[in-house]
Each structure stands twice: as structure tokens, then as C-alpha cells.
């Protein structure tokens, strides 16, 4: 079979987003599932974020795939659908269209369209392999009941097959087929780390933060790749930088010790970036130092808030002291900190000021302030659904307020959009000369990326610093808010907009 896998571009041509300006990660889902069928089939991946607008129709009509598969998180929803629609439009009914990823897994009913033949629910490897085998053997696309982890249409009926088990050890999955991305090599990046690979070393998370669906997606279980397998994959990458995609890399100190052993024994010289919690950083200072020596260059953490009460409400199970100490420690170790902070829709002017002051105090290298929102599939979604002003998937990018704001919307966005400038001091004090002098090799490796990133940051600034950008996005979708009687209008607004 000929199989085309597509990473959609979340936006229309030429729109600025976090992807093209801050963090462009390779489509790890697609290389993972491709690896399961690659030997027996002709597989291609296209990353639409890095392609011109005519690439998809061209490839569809020249490669003539039998199956088109697309990956999708919430913000990608309409664009992912557009790709599958385009596939049917060019290739007709015969092409099998398949959607997978976090959004269709958590809310499959939102992708119930005639141009989507099936949805992969949850982990993709085995489901994909079984589906391809099924279709390859000439079986009907209407009789997919035997394959666990699918939602599909049988005439007017919507069929959900059995649950896909997540018992399989990560080491037994084939190594992701990263070579299918060769033509994009050098174009993936995080900030100044240009030419970056990505490896997922664990799946799932043991915590249960109410704004995150990872623990539900992976059914509260956590599985790990062995340190040997991780090191094997690291050796296969010829990129100087690697992003470990795990949502929570910093767990099980013993596994990390083993990973450091492998890296040292094999003499692997890569710079790597991770996402992890600050409490772990604080509790494992020596291990952090050792990981730094083995190439750890950046830790991305959810700092979420400067307010203890809110932390409690988010079920983050962490303390503000940890955040401050972790930032201090990482700065001391010359490890770049990326901190995600949350502004809340019920913020008042003072709350914004306090948050920015707290960030500056912590000296975070790359602070990012996002807006707290219920993402589909999360605890917070279930609790706050009735408050939503819109269910338009594009707004679930953590940069828009999808629930009513306490301040008038314009003022809210004015205060919010100020974060980038208001936290400059944090960046400056973190990226000291001392910091850079300690890691000359890292600085050398980032040399070419630094210039590009400074251009990109300019672009990001244009997009993020102008409150009008957010308001214009909402025009015609979220009515401006609020006029004279906030209580009453809010109620009307909610009923009016949610129904749309």
C-alpha cells in the first residue's frame, strides 16, 4: 500500500504562531506509527508547517496514496480535517482517511464527517499496523470491529471498537522512522537550538493536574524506554540538539542515573532539552548537575502561578518555594529555564503586575505566559464547560481567554499582552555572561540559531505584544465584553455563544 502521513499546519498561509516562532517539533506521532508498517509498504510523511500551500495537492495526485493519516491536537482540528477533506476531494472515495492524536482521542465525536473514514483512539502503533494489515488483505473498510482502538462509520452507524490496551513495553515498539523526515532535517528547533531531533522516552504521568489530559490519555500509567534504548536512539540522531518529548521526564531518579551512565560510557555528545517538574529539580540537585554534564541544556516547567491558592486548585501538588528554588538552582547550573506561567481569566490588574514581578524575581530564561483554559478531555473541561464562550478549536491554544474575563476583555488583553515586555528583566538576569561562559560548547552550537531566533523573537513579539491581535481574532466569534451590567450580559453572552 502507499501511505501518506501528514502533519497539518495549524494556521492558514503565513500566520504567526508558536510553532514557526518558538518551538517547531518534528511530527513524532507520524514517525512512530510509520515505523510499524514501513518495511512492507511505501510510506511518506509531509510536514505542512514546512511546505508551500501547493505541496499537499501535488503529492496527493502524484503519489496517489491508498491511505492518508493525519495527526491532530486541539488547535489543529480544522486544519487536520481540511487535509483529509482535500485527500477525498482529489482521490475520491477510494482513499482511506484516518485521523489520530490527542484531540480525536479525547473528543472523537467532533470529527464525525463523511470525509473521515476512521479515528485512531489512543496509542497508535498497534492499531495502525492492524488497520493497514486489514486493508492490505482486501478486507472491507466497513468491518473494522476486530481492530481495537478505532472509531469508524458503518453507514449511518458510529462504531467504537474495543479499547486498545496500553500494556506494551515501550522497548518493544520499533524505533521511530525518523529517516522519513530527512528532507526537513535542520528545520526543527526550540528557540536558538536549531537542527533538533525529538525522542519520546516515556509515556504518561503519575500526577493528575486538572488542566492536563496526559494522565487520562495514558490511563494513569507511566511506561519508560530503557536507558539503553534511549542512548541507541540518541546515537542514531545526527542533530546536535535533542528534545525529549515526555510530558514529565523528571521521574524515577534511578532511570536518569542509568541514562547518564549510558551517555558517559558511550561518549554521546548531544545537547538535550526536557519537560519536567520543579519539585524534582529541587530534590535532586546532584542529579541535575550530572545531567547538565551529560548535555542537559534546558528544562521546561509549568510554573503555573505565583499564588498558592491557585496552585491548590490546579491540583498541581507543588509549592511556590519549589519554583523559586528550582529556578535558582538551574541558573546556577547554567541550564536554561523555560517557565510556563498562567494568567487566569479572573485576573485583575494587580494580579498581572504581581505575576510579572514574580517572574522577574525568579530569573527565568524563557518565560511564557499563557491563559488558563479548560482543554478538551481534562478535569477542568468537565468542570468549566458551561462557562465556555466558544468551542471553536482554534482558540484552545492557551493564548486566548475562552471563558469570561473579570476585567473587560480589552483591558484583560492589554494587561496580558504586556507580559513579553514586562518580563524582559527575567531574561536579562538569567542569561548572564557567567551563564554563557560556563558553557562555551553549548554557546558555539547555538551560534547560528541565536541570530535566527532573535529574528523570530521579533516576529513573535509582533504577534504577542499587540492586544488588538487577540481582540481581532475574537471578532465575530466572541462578542466584545462587557458593557454596563456585567452579570446580566455575561449570562446572555454565554448562552448565546455556546450554542453556536
Amino acid at each position, binding site marked *: 500500500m502507499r501511505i501518506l502521513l501528514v502533519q497539518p499546519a495549524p494556521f492558514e498561509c503565513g500566520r504567526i504562531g508558536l510553532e514557526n516562532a518558538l518551538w517547531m517539533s518534528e511530527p513524532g506521532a507520524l514517525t512512530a506509527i510509520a515505523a510499524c508498517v514501513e518495511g512492507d509498504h511505501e510510506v511518506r510523511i509531509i510536514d505542512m508547517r514546512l511546505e508551500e500551500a501547493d505541496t499537499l*495537492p501535488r503529492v496527493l495526485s502524484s503519489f496517489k496514496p491508498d491511505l492518508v493519516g493525519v495527526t491532530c491536537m486541539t488547535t489543529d482540528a480544522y486544519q487536520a480535517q481540511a487535509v483529509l477533506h482535500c485527500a477525498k476531494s482529489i482521490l475520491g472515495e477510494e482513499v482511506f482517511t484516518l485521523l489520530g492524536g490527542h484531540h480525536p482521542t479525547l473528543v472523537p465525536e467532533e470529527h464525525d464527517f463523511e470525509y473521515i473514514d476512521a479515528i485512531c483512539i489512543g496509542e497508535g502503533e498497534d492499531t495502525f499496523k492492524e488497520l493497514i494489515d486489514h486493508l492490505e488483505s482486501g478486507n472491507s473498510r466497513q468491518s473494522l470491529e476486530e481492530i481495537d482502538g478505532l472509531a469508524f462509520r458503518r453507514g449511518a452507524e458510529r462504531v467504537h471498537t474495543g479499547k486498545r490496551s496500553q500494556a506494551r513495553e515501550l522497548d518493544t515498539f520499533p524505533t521511530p522512522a525518523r529517516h522519513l523526515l530527512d528532507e526537513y532535517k535542520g528545520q526543527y528547533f526550540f528557540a536558538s537550538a536549531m537542527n533538533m531531533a525529538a525522542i519520546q522516552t516515556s509515556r504518561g504521568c503519575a500526577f493528575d493536574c486538572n488542566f492536563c489530559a496526559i494522565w487520562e490519555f495514558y490511563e494513569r500509567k507511566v511506561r519508560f524506554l530503557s536507558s539503553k534504548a534511549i542512548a541507541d536512539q540518541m546515537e542514531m540522531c545526527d542533530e546536535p540538539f535533542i528534545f525529549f518529548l515526555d510530558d514529565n521526564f523528571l521521574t524515577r531518579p534511578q532511570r536518569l542515573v542509568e541514562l547518564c551512565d549510558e551517555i558517559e560510557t558511550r561518549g554521546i555528545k548531544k545537547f538535550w532539552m526536557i519537560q519536567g517538574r520543579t519539585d524534582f529539580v529541587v530534590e535532586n540537585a546532584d542529579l541535575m548537575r550530572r545531567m547538565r554534564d551529560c548535555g542537559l541544556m534546558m528544562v521546561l516547567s509549568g510554573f503555573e502561578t505565583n499564588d498558592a491558592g491557585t496552585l491548590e486548585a490546579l491540583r498541581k501538588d507543588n509549592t511556590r518555594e519549589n519554583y523559586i528554588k528550582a529556578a535558582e538552582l538551574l541558573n546556577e547550573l547554567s541550564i536554561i529555564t523555560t517557565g510556563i506561567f498562567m494568567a487566569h481569566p479572573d485576573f485583575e490588574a494587580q494580579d498581572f503586575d504581581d505575576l510579572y514581578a514574580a517572574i522577574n524575581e525568579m530569573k527565568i530564561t524563557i518565560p511564557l505566559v499563557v491563559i488558563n483554559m479548560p482543554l478538551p478531555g481534562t478535569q477542568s473541561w468537565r468542570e468549566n464547560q458551561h462557562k465556555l464562550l466558544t468551542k471553536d478549536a482554534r482558540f484552545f491554544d492557551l493564548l486566548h481567554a475562552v471563558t469570561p474575563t473579570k476585567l473587560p476583555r480589552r483591558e484583560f488583553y492589554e494587561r496580558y499582552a504586556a507580559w513579553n515586555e514586562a518580563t524582559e528583566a527575567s531574561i536579562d538576569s538569567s542569561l548572564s555572561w557567567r551563564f554563557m561562559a560556563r558553557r562555551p560548547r553549548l554557546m558555539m552550537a547555538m551560534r547560528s540559531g541565536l541570530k535566527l531566533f532573535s529574528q523570530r523573537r521579533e516576529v513573535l513579539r509582533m*504577534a504577542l505584544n499587540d492586544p488588538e491581535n487577540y481582540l481581532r481574532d475574537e471578532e465575530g466569534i466572541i462578542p466584545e465584553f462587557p458593557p454596563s451590567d456585567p452579570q446580566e450580559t455575561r449570562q446572555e453572552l454565554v448562552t448565546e455563544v455556546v450554542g453556536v
Partner: protein
Amino acid sequence: MSAILAEKDLIPQSTPDAPLLPTWLSELRDEVSAHPGVNHLLLSRLRTGRYTKGDYKVFGLQHYPMVGTFTRYMELLLLRAPSSEQKLWLAKVLVDEYGEGSDGDDHAKLYLRYLNSMGLVSGEEETTPLCSAVWEFIGIHLRICSEEPFLVGLGALGPGHEWAIPKMFNQIIPGLERAGMGYEERMYFDLHTEQDIEHANWMSQALAQLGQDEEARALVRRGALLSLGARFRFWTGVERCVVARRQPHSVDAVRRGILGSRRPDREESPGNRRDLRTAIQDHWAGKSWPVPLPSDSTLIEVSQ
């Protein structure tokens, strides 16, 4: 998420089946049907995304100037038709295009009805700066119909338009519906999915007779591809205008090449609809088109 999201979806119709097409024509029909100009992602995005009346107005203001010009291309081509039989075919389509198929309402009037329903402020349709892709599209068709061999013109207006339009508009209509436009308001589009199927069949008959040898067929194909290539760039131009309405910085960034686009936008707008009318009149009087036109090297071929 809402009931609307779970709506029944229709797969866009493929181009109409004209009766008994010779192989070369049915191959050309497949090529047109798969062409990026007919399957621009913007069209699928309009289909699956959540564009508002405001967005559709931006779209419409760029599209409107092209609506009145099809008849002009036909008139130019009519002058070049080598036999009276061919003149007759073209004239038949032309009469419809003048408005016979829509109760005498000509296409431009129908289109204004659509623009008005999206909150057009009177006069905007004249003063809105048009992106260069609109100018390019019109310029290239004027050139094709007045300077290229007759069959290139027929390829551009037949397969390039009449075959392409029903499929493109079928993708646009559901989005218009979702944005709240009723049949009356979007009639321009609905009409073209119906009427153009007939036009396409008349054209197919003409093409079947005229495309007797390889050379003739190549001319027809070239015309179709020139037209569809311009159409592709038109959709990209419209998409940028839609983005720029909400995110003007984004488009600036692309223009400056910062987002790594390999094809940054060239331009400032070459002018509005008034300027365009003047340019068309000047062209009629023999002056050259004010905007550079792409060469054949930009043809987008769809390999079979």
C-alpha cells in the same frame, strides 16, 4: 464540539461527467480535478474551518473584481474563433453568463447581493486594495484570450473555468451556509455549480471536435494549466488577505521572509477595482498590462 461540528458532511462533487469524452479529454479532466488550483487548502479550510461573515467579506472583495471579467475574456476569444460553429458555442455560454440563466440578474449584481449580506459598506467594493494575484489572474486571462492561439484560450475558459468552478464552489458553499448565508444570498455560488455543468458539457463537445491532434491537445492543456496556476495563486492571495484582516503582522512577517517562507509575498497592492477597470480598458486599447505576468515556467503540472 457543537451540533454543527457533527453535521453531515458532503464530499465535494468531482467535475461533471460529460458524455463520452475522448481519452485525452478525460485525462485532462482528471488533471483539472486534481489540480492545486481547484484543491487549494483554503477551499478545504473554508469547508472545515469556522470563518465568519467578516472573513467571507474579505474573500468576496478580492473575488468580486474577477466576476465581471469572464464575459470580457469570452468576448475576446469570440473574436478569435476560427469558424462560425465555434463562435456559436461560445456565444451560447456567453448569453448565459450575461445573465439569462439567472433571471436576467447578471453575475456582478448577484455577487453584490452576496457582498451586501456580509455587511458591505457601500463603495468598499471599489476602493478595497486588490492583492496582486487578482491583477495577475485577470491580466493573464486577457493575454491568453487576445494573444495566444485560440485553443489555449479555449483551454483556459473551458477546462480551466467551466470544469473547475463547480468543484471549487461546492467546497465554498457549505462554509457560507455555516456562516449564516441563505440560498438567496449565496446564489452566485449555487448557480455556478448548476449552470457551469451545462457550460462544461458544451465546451467539452467543442474541445472533442477541435482537439484532433497532439499539438491541438497540448494547446488546450496549456491554457487550462495557465488558468489554474493563476487560480492557485489567487487562492493563496485571498488566504493572505483573510489572515491579514485579523493578524496584519503575520503577513508582514511573511513578506519580509522572516517565517522562512520560500515564496514571500512580493507586493503592495497594484490598485483597487477602479484602477483595474481602467487597466482593462487600456488593455482593450492596446496598452500593456501594468502588472508583470508569470511565464509558462510557473505552470503547475499534475503528474498522472
